[in-house]
């Protein structure tokens, strides 16, 4: 829903500047062809009365020579989706760099004590470290050996193999190698053809990872975990301990978490995640495929949630209660919210005098640029402009546009799996009648309305922001805070504008749930109220006459 945007005409003009003019200035230096392409990715938001928003071009290839934020397919597959799972040994099949750069760089936390064997391979980086010889004669032999060595050293439950760019070109059959080693070692070994040149960003890798997990792991274990209100949390990667905070809330409410994809995750939990009764989606972009496939094959429905922001957290908990529709759960959820909120409100009231009216920009990921607007709104701050690094149109405009999304050369090479209901295990968790009843009460299934529908008119939505455009935005707006990642951090801060990293949280956090919201309020207060910036210019730069004084003294 559009958060009151239409009721507040004051916000139509972007920070008192004409957004169309801003757009023109962003495009001015590009060659005509580039400008035409970027023009479709830079959109001035407008939400119509029935919730329609303008079309934004997204998930399209970045123009060569424009420095963007995006990583590659391999990064999305290995780093984002599989990486946070502690007990799979992830072997990078390729030259050393790709594996090295994805070694413990993401800030996903895990608690090895929460599984019986305590396995944790997150601190390791396994690579076949391809050399000339493998590029010329093929790397399958070395890959087999790498799998064998990893097995001999660690005796893991599962080994996953990730292909990098050269692998696809030299034609190694990683899947055949994995099958062979799986038979030989008697553990689960599976491969991903996630060469970096596939798709246009990490997003392709998410999809490939979703497919692979679903094909090789989900459904392997039918044990039904004990407990009431059994759910999976999808697309929550436990950055800064977010998942721990959400787990805390579930526990308080008596909600049973069967599996989480893939923050604080174990492969065993993926294997029986199909036994849960509801899937909750946090990051729609990276994980909606698993949810869709699980629904088709096993009958588990999904709803969109968001635990970023105190109000959003409360709302998400209520949605879960609404779905299970039991008085007992509804009561606990209300009680938990009532108990948690006072501390949140007090913290917010404390910082608001300093944060009210300040202006933020968010360019990050495939869901956070949306979710974090909630927290800024709670601080009384305005989001002037936002965009995703690797979102698709449905993440911007809502899933209703899915049928209109065109398949292009870059998306065609990502496999769409054909899923059919499992003959024995498909079991709709709720009847059609019940579903209709809940929908009538406002609970939406398989729905995500996207970011733009919730942003005020006149704000700028920019997909795949480039470094050059970042610099221009900073120059034109001087926002009070800019949210992106480490690649943008130090450029933005050179201008004296604080940058909050929303990938790694600047190694802070958690920011999810109620406690997380409090952390975030304090952090943003610290950043926008910092006094360091006032020393940017030395006194004699500010007042040249002073330098003479100093010299004279």
């Amino acid at each position, binding site marked *: 829903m559009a958060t009151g945007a239409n009721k507040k005409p004051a916000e139509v003009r972007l920070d008192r500047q004409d957004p169309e003019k801003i757009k023109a200035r962003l495009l001015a*230096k*590009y*060659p005509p062809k*580039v400008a035409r392409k970027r023009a479709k990715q830079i959109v001035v938001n407008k939400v119509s009365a029935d919730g329609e928003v303008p079309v934004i071009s997204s998930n399209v*290839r*970045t*123009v*060569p*020579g*424009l*420095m963007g*934020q*995006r*990583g*590659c397919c391999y*990064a999305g597959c290995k780093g984002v989706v599989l990486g946070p799972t502690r007990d799979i040994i992830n*072997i990078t099949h*390729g*030259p*050393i*760099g*790709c*594996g*090295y*750069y*994805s*070694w413990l760089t993401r800030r996903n936390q895990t608690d090895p004590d929460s599984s019986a064997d305590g396995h944790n391979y997150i*601190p*390791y*980086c*396994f690579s076949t*470290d*391809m*050399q*000339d010889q493998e*590029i010329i004669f093929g790397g399958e032999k*070395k890959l087999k050996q*790498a799998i064998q*060595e*990893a097995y001999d050293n660690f005796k893991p439950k599962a080994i996953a193999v990730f292909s*990098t*760019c*050269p692998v696809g*070109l030299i034609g190694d059959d990683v899947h055949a190698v994995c099958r062979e080693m799986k038979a030989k070692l008697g553990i689960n070994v599976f491969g991903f053809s996630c060469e*970096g*040149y*596939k798709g246009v960003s990490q997003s392709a890798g998410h999809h490939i990872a979703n497919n692979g997990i679903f094909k090789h792991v989900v459904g392997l274990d039918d044990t039904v975990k004990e407990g009431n209100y059994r759910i999976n949390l999808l697309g929550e990667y436990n950055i800064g301990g977010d998942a721990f905070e959400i787990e805390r809330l579930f526990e308080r409410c008596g909600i049973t978490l069967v599996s989480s994809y893939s923050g604080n995750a174990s492969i065993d939990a993926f294997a029986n995640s199909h036994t849960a009764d509801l899937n909750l989606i946090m990051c729609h972009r990276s994980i909606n495929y698993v949810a869709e496939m699980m629904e088709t094959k096993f009958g588990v429905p999904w709803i969109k949630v968001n635990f970023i922001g105190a109000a959003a957290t409360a709302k998400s908990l209520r949605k879960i209660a609404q779905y299970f529709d039991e008085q007992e759960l509804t009561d606990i959820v209300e009680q938990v919210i009532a108990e948690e909120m006072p501390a949140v409100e007090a913290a917010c009231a404390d910082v608001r005098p300093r944060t009210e009216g300040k202006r933020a920009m968010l360019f990050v990921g495939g869901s956070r640029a949306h979710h974090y607007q909630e927290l800024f709104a709670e601080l009384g701050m305005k989001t002037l402009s936002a965009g995703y690094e690797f979102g698709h149109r449905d993440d911007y405009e809502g899933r209703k546009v899915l049928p209109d999304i065109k398949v292009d*050369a870059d998306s065609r090479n990502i496999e769409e799996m054909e899923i059919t209901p499992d003959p024995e295990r498909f079991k709709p968790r709720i009847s059609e009648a019940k579903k209709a009843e809940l929908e009538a009460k406002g609970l939406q299934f398989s729905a995500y309305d996207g970011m733009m529908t919730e942003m005020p008119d006149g704000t700028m939505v920019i997909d795949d922001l480039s*470094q050059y455009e970042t*610099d221009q935005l900073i120059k034109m707006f001087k926002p009070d805070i800019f949210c992106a*990642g480490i*690649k943008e*951090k*130090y*450029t933005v801060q*050179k*201008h*004296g504008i604080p940058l909050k990293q929303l990938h790694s949280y600047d190694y802070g956090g958690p920011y999810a749930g109620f406690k997380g919201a409090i952390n975030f309020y304090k952090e943003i207060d610290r950043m926008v109220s910092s006094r360091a910036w006032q020393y*940017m210019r030395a006194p004699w*730069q500010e007042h040249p006459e002073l330098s003479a004084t100093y010299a004279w003294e």
Partner: protein
Amino acid sequence: MKSAMRTDYYTATQNACNLCAPLGAALVFKGIANTVPLLHGSQGCSTYIRRYMISHFKEPLDIACSNFGEETAIFGGGANLKIAIDNIRKQYCPDLIGIATTCLSETIGDDVPMFIKAYQNGCRDEDLPALVHVSTPSYQGTHMQGFHGAVRALVATLAETASVEGPLSVNLFPGMVSPSDLRQLKEMVAAFDLEAILVPDYSETLNGPLWTEYQPIPQGGTPVAALRRTGGAAASIECGLVLSGEKETAGTWLEDHCGVPLHRLGLPIGIGASDLFFASLAAISGQPIPGKYTAQRGRLLDALVDGHKHFNGVKAALFGEEDLVAGLAAFCGELGIIPVLCATGGGNGRFVQTVQSVVPERYHDQMQILEDSDFVTIEKTLEALAPDLLIGHSKGFTMSRRLQRPLIRVGFPVHDRVDGSRMLHLGYRGAQQLFDRIANTLIEEKQKKNHVGYTYY
């Protein structure tokens, strides 16, 4: 002397101790004024490399990319490279674009020099930036090969032999050292009334002040015009003992093509190596060593004598970039520290011999030297060697934690301390700082373990 290659242990690599080639090349290009590094391949590599270097330098660090898609991987990247160069010119108006290849464009065999020629021919009457290419397949070499390769490519592409007017200049190829080190080197050369042409010089671009005005490309770096003058310099100094066994470097190129005399030295880490460095500057300039440095040296020696009790017989494990480790090993020898392990992920087959040549013979039978190594191997080796401390980069932290030995951070990457770009290793002052850090760490360990709580050491 015991030494081993990694093959004694494993085929695959677990927890690598080296990075990939285009990273080194991109870093070099960041040390040239008004330059944009461009990786020819898919965008993941440039993003990873940017991200990784930024976590060390904590500075803006932009690297462009020619952005291969699947069809590019099949049909070749010529068209993409052209578009990338066009767009970089429009956005940044650079003086130079430094083009390094990734494993992808190398594997498909893109002929980048030909693409560049075609591009230059296609815009004959335009004011083009210099286009410098270096081939950096990571399956053939580490980030150090990429680094030295890019330095060579820069002079080989740009150097002119014309005789030079003005002050005597010296080409200085410092190797992969910190911005603070680079500043220190420039100061040292200037003290001899010589002009230093540093390749690369990222002392400002990767360790600059806040901006009062927007800078499309951070200021600083060696100007392209200076690179052209490398052919007319009085001499070249190339740092790195392992590197000095390499036949094709920037220094040898200038010697062969422009007749610039080449001084091949170790990195000036510690007393002996710094002495040699100053001796070279004195010889090139014909000037005596300035009193300021004699005084620095004197103070360093004074501290060494006073602090000897802290070091004698202490065992250290060194790891990281090959020439840094060789330099540190020599310095340890000077301090009376036994470098029980010297390990590198690269090495080029010359590492073992080089380290042997700089460490006093009496230590040799207590030492292990590992070339082409990784952290699993290093850690295994260390179990038996029981070092007192580790000296190396941040990736040794896990090992330091498991072995419960302190890690003194040096070199690259340092992403778990704030001063990665400000650490000083070179010259007498660098040695002094290293000395202080090592001594203080050893004292702190002793102090922590002591039950009384003495405060005099």
